[in-house]
C-alpha cells in the first residue's frame, strides 16, 4: 500500500521564520504535490513536481518555494512565514505515465500555525 509521510502533524512557528515541511513517498511515484486546505476553499494547489529537480507553480505559489532533490522527497518551504499561511498542508503523490489511471495518495497533513 502506498504511504505518503509528512514529517510533522502539528507545527507552530513565528512570523518571519523560515519553515520547512517535508514529505516522503515510498512508491516511486513521479509526481508529487503540495496543497493547502482551508475551510470553504477546499484544496488549492501550491506547487507540484513531475520529476527530480523539476517543479511547477500551482494556483497559489506566492510566499512558497519547493525542493525535490530525490524522487521520494518533496519539500515545501515558507521563506518568511506569515499569519495568512496558517493552514493545513497536504502532500500527495501519483503515478505518472501515458497509461496513468491511479488516484492521488495523500499524507496525513501538517497543521501549521503562524503566530
Amino acid at each position, binding site marked *: 500500500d502506498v504511504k505518503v509521510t509528512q514529517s510533522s502533524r502539528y507545527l507552530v512557528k513565528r512570523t518571519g521564520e523560515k519553515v520547512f515541511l517535508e514529505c516522503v513517498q515510498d512508491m516511486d511515484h513521479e509526481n508529487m504535490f503540495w496543497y493547502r486546505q482551508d475551510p470553504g476553499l*477546499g484544496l488549492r*494547489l501550491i506547487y*507540484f513536481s513531475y520529476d527530480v529537480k523539476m517543479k511547477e507553480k500551482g494556483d497559489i505559489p506566492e510566499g512558497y518555494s519547493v525542493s525535490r532533490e530525490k524522487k521520494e522527497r518533496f519539500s515545501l518551504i515558507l521563506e518568511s512565514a506569515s499569519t495568512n499561511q496558517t493552514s493545513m498542508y497536504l502532500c*500527495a503523490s501519483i503515478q*505518472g505515465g501515458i497509461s496513468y*489511471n491511479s*488516484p*492521488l495518495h495523500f499524507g*496525513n*497533513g501538517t497543521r501549521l500555525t503562524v503566530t
Partner: protein
Amino acid sequence: AQSVSQHNHHVILSEAASLELGCNYSYGGTVNLFWYVQYPGQHLQLLLKYFSGDPLVKGIKGFEAEFIKSKFSFNLRKPSVQWSDTAEYFCAALPGGSYIPTFGRGTSLIVHP
C-alpha cells in the same frame, strides 16, 4: 479555466436518510473523476473513481456515483447514511492525459444519530 463545482457546502442529515452530493466539472474532453473523503482527524482517502466504462460506479461503504456526460456531472449517492459517514467530501476531476487534478471546494456532511 478548468473547474469543479460542488453545490452543497454543508449538508445535515439524520441517520437512514438518503444522500446525494452534487459535482459538476467544466472539461469538454475525456475526464477521470473521483470522490475523496476526509473523516475527522484523518487523511484524505479515495471513495470511488471513474475512468471509463459503466457510468455507475460503486465505491467503499455503500457509496456510488453516476457519471452523466451530457450534464458534466458526477454526483455522489448513498441510499441510507450512517453517523460514521460524517466527513468532508471532495469531488475531483482529471483531464485525460493530465496528472494534475482539480478539486471542488468540498461538502461537509454531518449525520445525526
